[in-house]
């Protein structure tokens, strides 16, 4: 991130949102909403005095509620750019109107109470969508007690705690009493592979991150015991199987194939009830901490992004690639590419690979002065076109533009590089002015006619 922010040819806009996208490959016109930070980026030196002095605390989103942050804050220490943001929902200046501590303390006068969102317009040749993922909400599994029982946490909570800059300073503790856990139960497939209550697919990353957390646990608290409930171990990539074996054999994690049916609190302990499906035995374990490996789900925001960019989404909300095998990075919209989990669950190496591929696709696109496109695109006969624009109403690609003819008539024009070649326009056009090349009306009529005339000739003979 730091490296990217320092590249003169990269403009990094954080705390910003896509507002509107028009145009097509090579010519996207994009409106971006830069949200108001209430701090003037051009002045702020990132000294952090304001954060230090701010008297207002609130729960930290970054730490998933395990810790607190100030009303003026940076989401995490390495955040780029190194400029804090004022949370006007909690900031005393807005809630009571009395506090102006940060404004007074700021040595460069960067606090700007009147700053407003700014909409900027930029032109781009290509777009890469990398909007990431969200984690499954484990409270939907009421029997696990997530959100209700303090010591039932998710893998991400675990990550925050073992992080040296995290809310516990890198110490793994039970959130209920801040004591070190002795026995930690990990439950995999929370939300994943459950068509009824979660999602039917395998999130693909939970086996590996659970194994990693098992190892982290043993390294932080060597005497702790790790018990993992799993459905199947899915570790197909390079070195993955060996990693799991290490967690089991070197670090002594106990892997139990089976599901947990219920977790409840008793005498400051957690009681985990489950089944070992290999032995067929019911189990009841005492635990100090339970870590849920929640699955990957598509971000809520995807709906809006999908509409803005005319991207298709699958049943689960992930963006659909152009072709599952042959074009896994491209989308239906020419010039728009996908990277990472917005396209489907994947781990870091796969995300990096897809990101690199998307970048490569963009480079390849930009390396040519002219675009090659499939000849199966629609074309408009200006004379026949009556300018009703029903083609534009139905085009899934937004490939139809208005054009004025030399005889001053508004007619449809197909942006060939954007046209996907489906022919919906041809089936819609009342006059037959717009014709999908290679599947024109007359070509199809010719096929029908030849077939039928042949039949009639045969039966006449």
């Amino acid at each position, binding site marked *: 991130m730091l490296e990217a922010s320092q590249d003169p040819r990269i403009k990094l806009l954080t705390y910003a949102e896509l507002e509107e996208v028009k145009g097509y490959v090579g010519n996207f016109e994009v409106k971006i909403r830069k949200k108001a930070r209430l701090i003037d980026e051009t002045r702020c030196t990132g000294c952090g005095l304001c954060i230090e002095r701010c008297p207002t605390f609130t729960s930290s989103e970054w730490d998933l509620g395990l810790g607190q942050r100030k009303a003026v804050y940076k989401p995490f220490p390495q955040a780029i750019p190194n400029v804090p943001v004022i949370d006007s929902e909690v900031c005393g200046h807005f809630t009571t109107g009395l506090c102006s501590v940060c404004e007074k303390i700021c040595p460069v006068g960067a606090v700007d109470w009147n700053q407003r969102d700014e909409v900027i317009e930029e032109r781009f040749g290509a777009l890469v969508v990398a909007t990431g993922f969200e984690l499954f909400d484990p409270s939907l599994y009421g029997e696990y007690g997530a959100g209700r029982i303090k010591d039932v946490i998710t893998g991400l909570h675990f990550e925050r705690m073992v992080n040296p800059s995290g809310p516990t300073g890198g110490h793994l503790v039970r959130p209920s009493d801040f004591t070190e856990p002795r026995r930690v139960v990990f439950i995999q497939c929370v939300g994943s592979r459950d068509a009824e209550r979660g999602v039917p697919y395998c999130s693909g990353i939970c086996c590996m991150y659970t194994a990693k957390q098992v190892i982290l646990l043993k390294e932080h608290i060597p005497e702790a015991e790790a018990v993992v409930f799993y459905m199947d171990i899915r570790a197909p990539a390079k070195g993955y199987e060996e990693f799991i074996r290490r967690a089991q054999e070197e670090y002594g994690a106990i892997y139990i194939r089976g599901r947990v049916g219920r977790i409840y609190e008793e005498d400051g302990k957690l009681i985990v009830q489950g089944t070992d499906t290999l032995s067929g035995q019911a189990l009841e374990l005492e635990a100090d901490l339970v870590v849920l490996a929640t699955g990957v789900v598509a971000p809520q925001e995807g709906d809006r992004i999908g509409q803005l960019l005319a991207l298709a989404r699958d049943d689960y909300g992930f963006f659909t690639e152009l072709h599952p095998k042959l074009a896994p990075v491209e989308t239906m919209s020419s010039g728009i590419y996908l990277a990472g989990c917005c396209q489907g669950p994947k781990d870091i190496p796969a995300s990096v690979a897809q990101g690199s591929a998307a970048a490569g696709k963009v480079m390849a696109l930009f390396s040519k002065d002219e675009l090659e496109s499939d000849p199966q695109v629609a074309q408009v006969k200006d004379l026949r076109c009556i300018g009703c624009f029903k083609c534009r109403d139905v085009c899934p690609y937004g490939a139809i533009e208005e054009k004025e003819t030399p005889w001053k008539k508004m007619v449809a024009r197909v942006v060939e590089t954007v046209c996907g070649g489906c022919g919906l326009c041809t089936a819609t056009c009342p006059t037959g002015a717009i014709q*999908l090349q290679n599947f024109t009306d007359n070509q199809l009529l010719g096929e029908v*006619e030849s077939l039928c005339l042949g039949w009639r000739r045969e039966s006449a003979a």
Partner: protein
Amino acid sequence: MSGMEERERRIVGFLCNWCSYGGADTAGVARLQQPTDLRILRVPCSGRVNPLLVVKAFLEGADGVLVSGCHPGDCHYVEGNYYARRRLELLKRFLPFMGIEPGRFEYTWVSSSEGQRWQKVATEFVEEIHRLGPFAGWEDEG
């Protein structure tokens, strides 16, 4: 196959390139037996099938017409078959009013992996057309 010993019927099938054409291919590769009455015309998408193409086939002497595309939601072109579904449904309800018996025109969805399903669709549709007999509506027309 019962009732299909008589001479072949004239049946036109408009199949989308990405799903149903592939499905018919899959059926062929798997050597699933299919009636030979149905002649396939490949189109990019069921959304490309102007309902008038179906009408034209009847006009030129077809006994039955079938349109098959990707399952709704699986359209290669995202939404083509959604439009097709509306248009073809209307056509299906309208043709009998103009004098084409119900059953002579059908539309359905077959994915490229559904070879067996294609076999079932093709077989049952052809059987239905055999049951209806040749379309004699234009015989006095030449």
